[in-house]
């Protein structure tokens, strides 16, 4: 990535350095890739809890009389009808039906929404929303620089949040806060948005607040988490966790050349809504008949295909891996790949070319891992 801008750092950067984190460049940000061990951090999230700094994510406020109908036009999903403090996963599409970004939208008020976009797509998402706002009584306000985002993920997350000092005035007790719902609160007097969302396949919360309060909140969560096995977790574990959970990552499984149906995200597109949203006609026409579709692949041994590796049937390349790793939880390689639709049926035997070595792989339904409820 040729980014002329200097690397940006999170408001929690000094905390990460103090914890001995290794850093990586992610979308122009210097973020923790791991603190001690990817595998230990991954395991902690599956069995106890992990705390992640996601302050690189983009927070774009959309407010004004027309905010709901505007979002119905700007995005693929039906957003004007979601409940107050409900979250919804949605997509920004191009006119040709490709995926510009995948986002989570929160309804914070009757006419106020928060759009959380990927760090790497911040400018594209904000620009698309601003352009699409023409003719609507709505303001698109990119507040990313002012927001920090801390996620606590794992089975012990709720206990940790309930015992975190300084979190007050929760609009809803956490045991009543269901998946993809949010509630207002305060942390040491600073407004806090507590959402039961995540990207790990576990129960967990994402906490939005002003950057100025990020460090004390991190420390308060760490203190409360000490007796619950909470560990700081970096982006390496976040990637293997989301991969096991079958969740797409923009730039790997999603891009502007891919339509939602190819990525298995047809359900996110609301064709039943009346609105002529951007990308609608292209999505209705659908991708080309032989357009590749996203599948899960599993193999034996320890060698996973990685992004870009060819997927082969017989002598013919019929697809490519988009993400792959040795699954820390399952102990065998797991991959997401785009393959020709004729080879997408679960159970289909394929071969992944791992740097010249053919590795047999089998198409399998996503996700690879599902937590026990």
């Amino acid at each position, binding site marked *: 990535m040729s980014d002329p801008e200097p690397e940006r750092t999170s408001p929690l950067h000094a905390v990460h350095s103090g914890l001995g984190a*290794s850093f990586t460049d992610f979308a122009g940000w210097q973020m923790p*890739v*791991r603190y001690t*061990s*990817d*595998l230990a951090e*991954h395991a902690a999230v599956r069995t106890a809890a992990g705390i992640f700094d996601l302050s690189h994510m983009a927070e774009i406020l959309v407010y004004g009389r027309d905010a709901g109908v505007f979002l119905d036009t700007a995005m693929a999903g039906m957003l004007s009808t979601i409940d107050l403090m409900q979250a919804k996963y949605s997509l920004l599409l191009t006119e040709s039906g490709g995926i510009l970004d995948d986002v989570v939208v929160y309804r914070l008020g009757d006419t106020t929404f928060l759009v959380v976009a990927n760090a790497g797509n911040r400018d594209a998402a904000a620009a698309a929303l601003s352009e699409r706002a023409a003719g609507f009584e709505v303001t698109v306000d990119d507040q990313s620089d002012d927001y920090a985002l801390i996620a606590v993920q794992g089975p012990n997350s709720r206990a940790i949040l309930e015992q975190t000092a300084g979190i007050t005035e929760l609009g809803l007790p956490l045991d009543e806060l269901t998946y993809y719902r949010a509630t207002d609160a305060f942390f040491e007097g600073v407004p806090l948005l507590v959402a039961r969302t995540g990207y790990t396949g576990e129960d967990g919360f994402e906490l939005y607040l002003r950057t100025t309060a990020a460090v004390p909140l991190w420390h308060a969560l760490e203190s409360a988490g000490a007796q619950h096995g909470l560990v700081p977790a970096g982006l*390496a574990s976040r*990637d*293997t966790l989301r991969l096991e959970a079958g969740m797409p990552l923009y730039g790997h499984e999603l891009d502007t050349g891919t339509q939602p149906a190819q990525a298995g995200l047809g359900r996110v597109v609301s064709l039943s809504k009346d609105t002529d949203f951007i990308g609608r006609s292209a999505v209705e026409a659908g991708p080309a008949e032989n357009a590749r579709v996203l599948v899960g692949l599993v193999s034996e041994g*320890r*060698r*996973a295909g*990685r992004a870009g590796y060819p997927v082969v049937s017989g002598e013919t390349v019929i697809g490519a891996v988009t993400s792959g*790793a*040795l699954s*820390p939880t399952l102990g065998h390689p797991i991959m997401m790949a785009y393959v020709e639709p004729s080879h997408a049926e679960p159970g289909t035997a394929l071969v992944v070319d791992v*740097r010249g070595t053919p590795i047999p792989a089998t198409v399998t339904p996503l996700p690879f891992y599902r937590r026990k409820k």
Partner: protein
Amino acid sequence: MADKTTLKYTPEHEWLDIDGNVATVGITAYAAEKLGDVVFVELPDVNEAVTAGSVIGEIESTKSVGELFAPVDGTVTENNPAVVDEPSLVNSDPFGEGWLIKVQFDAAPDGLLSWDEYSALVGE
């Protein structure tokens, strides 16, 4: 664990412990940390002839794939079965039990770095 300060290094983040005409080869702690948790190691067979600079093995972590380069022209005399069975040895003891191969050579390789030179290279 070998004394890091007496080992020789390559710019590809490998270390060599040279004893006569045999070099024991591993990757540095810096390289192991950059890779993350190593989950798979593939090493050349014993008696395999190797050419300096060519890829002769792989060190794979959850996150990425690293290549093992032959640091010298020669013949592999041993590979470390312990590290194939337990790849995390590369992380836990990169200069010791995490050694990878032994190579017998005719001519000592040129251009190896001292510990101080290697440390300067990686900025630590």
